[in-house]
C-alpha cells in the first residue's frame, strides 16, 4: 500500500499546503473560528471535544444567529478550552461555576443565547449544585456537558461519571461508586429539554444542540465522548479510533430502545441516544421580568418592608 501511495502522491509533508488564512475561508464552519488563536487545538490527538466544537458551530450557524448574540460560558477542564477557539462572546470562569456565571449573564441579558460548556467533572462534581438549581429555575441556558468519564486535564482522576468497575488513577483497583446519570438528574431537577448523543454521531449532536438552543428554558445536551489518553490507557481501551468504534457499537437510538421488551431494557448497558425528556414550563427570566414589571406598576412593597 505504501508504494502505491508514494507513486500516486509523492509529496513532502508540507508540500501543496493551503495558506493558513485561506483555510479559514474553505468552509462555513471554519469561518467561525478565531483566526488569531494558536492552532492546532490544545487537545490530545483524536480527542472527541474537537468534534463537539464543530457540532456546536454548525448548530449555531443552522439557527442563523448573529455571533454577537451568542455567549459561551466555560469553567475549567479540557472541555472548557473550547470557547477559546470560537468567535462568539466568551467567558472563561472558575472550576464548576460556568452555570453560576451563565445565570448572571442570562438575567442581565435575557435576549442573548447563553451556552454553558462543561465537562463531566465541571458540571457534576464541583458544579453539581449549580447544575440542579439552574435546572430547577428553568433558566434559559443551554448546558452542553461533554462526558468523557474522567478528569482528563489533571491526569485521569475518577469523576462522578466514571462507570462502575472501571479504573482511574485514583481508583487503581476499579471504581466502586455508581456513576451519575446526567440526563436523568437534569430531567428530575426540572430541565425542559434533555438530549444525549455521542461524538460518533455528530450530525445528531448538531440537531439536538440546535433544538436545545432554540428551547426557551434550561436545556441539557450530553455529548458522550472519550478520553483515550488517561481513561483509555489505564483501562486498556485502545486508540482514539478504537474508542470511537466502541461508542458506535455501544449506543442505541431512543426509537430502537423504545421497541425493546421490558426485560431487554432492564439489562440494557448501551447508551441511549435521542431526545430523552421535554416539558413546558415558564422560563425564569420571563417570570422575573413580569415580577419586576408588576412591582413597578403597582408599587407593591414587600411584606417585611420597614421603610417610611
Amino acid at each position, binding site marked *: 500500500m505504501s508504494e502505491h501511495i508514494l507513486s500516486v502522491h509523492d509529496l513532502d*509533508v508540507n508540500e501543496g499546503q493551503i495558506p493558513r488564512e485561506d*483555510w479559514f475561508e474553505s*468552509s462555513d464552519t471554519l469561518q467561525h473560528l478565531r483566526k488569531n488563536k494558536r492552532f492546532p*487545538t490544545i487537545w490530545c490527538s*483524536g480527542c472527541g471535544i474537537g*468534534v463537539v466544537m*464543530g457540532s456546536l458551530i454548525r448548530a449555531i450557524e443552522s439557527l442563523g444567529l448573529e455571533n454577537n448574540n451568542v455567549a459561551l460560558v466555560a469553567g475549567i477542564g479540557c472541555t472548557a478550552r473550547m470557547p477559546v477557539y470560537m468567535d462568539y462572546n466568551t467567558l472563561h470562569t472558575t472550576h464548576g461555576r460556568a452555570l453560576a456565571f451563565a445565570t448572571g449573564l442570562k438575567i442581565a441579558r435575557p435576549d442573548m443565547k447563553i451556552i454553558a460548556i462543561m465537562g463531566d467533572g465541571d458540571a457534576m462534581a464541583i458544579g453539581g449544585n449549580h447544575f440542579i438549581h439552574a435546572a430547577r429555575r428553568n433558566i434559559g441556558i443551554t448546558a452542553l456537558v461533554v462526558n468523557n468519564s474522567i478528569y482528563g486535564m489533571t491526569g485521569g482522576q475518577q469523576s462522578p461519571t466514571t462507570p462502575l468497575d472501571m479504573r482511574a488513577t485514583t481508583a487503581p483497583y476499579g471504581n466502586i461508586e455508581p456513576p451519575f446519570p446526567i440526563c436523568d438528574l437534569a430531567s428530575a431537577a426540572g430541565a425542559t429539554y434533555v438530549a444525549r448523543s455521542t461524538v460518533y454521531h*455528530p450530525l445528531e449532536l448538531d440537531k439536538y444542540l440546535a433544538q436545545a438552543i432554540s428551547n426557551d428554558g434550561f436545556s441539557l445536551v450530553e455529548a458522550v465522548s472519550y478520553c483515550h489518553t488517561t481513561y483509555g490507557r489505564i483501562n486498556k481501551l485502545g486508540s482514539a479510533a478504537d474508542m470511537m468504534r466502541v461508542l458506535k457499537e455501544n449506543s442505541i437510538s431512543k426509537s430502537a430502545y423504545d421497541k425493546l421488551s421490558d426485560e431487554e431494557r432492564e439489562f440494557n448497558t448501551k447508551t441511549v441516544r435521542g431526545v430523552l425528556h421535554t416539558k413546558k414550563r415558564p422560563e425564569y427570566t420571563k417570570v422575573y421580568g413580569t415580577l419586576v414589571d408588576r412591582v413597578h406598576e403597582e408599587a407593591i412593597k414587600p411584606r417585611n418592608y420597614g421603610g417610611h
Partner: protein
Amino acid sequence: MTELVSAVNQAPAKPAKKGPRGEVKIFATWCKGCTICVEFCPTHVLAMHPNGNHPIVVDQEKCTACHFCDTHCPDLAIVVRKIE
C-alpha cells in the same frame, strides 16, 4: 475488422458512477494524526502519509461526499465539498 475497431473507438467512455461525488481537502498543519478519518472512511479514499503524520487523498474518485471525515475530524483539518 476496421469497422469493428472504429466501433470500439467510438464507444462512449465508461459512465461516471452514480450518486454524489466529493472533493476532500486536508490541512496537514492542523492535523495531529489520530487516524480516525482513515480508519472510518467507508470507501477508503484516505490513507496515512508514509513519511508524515497526516492523511492524504489516495483515491479521489471514490469519495461519495458522505461527510464522515470532516464532521468527525477533531482538529477541523478536513473539508469535504460536494461536486455537482
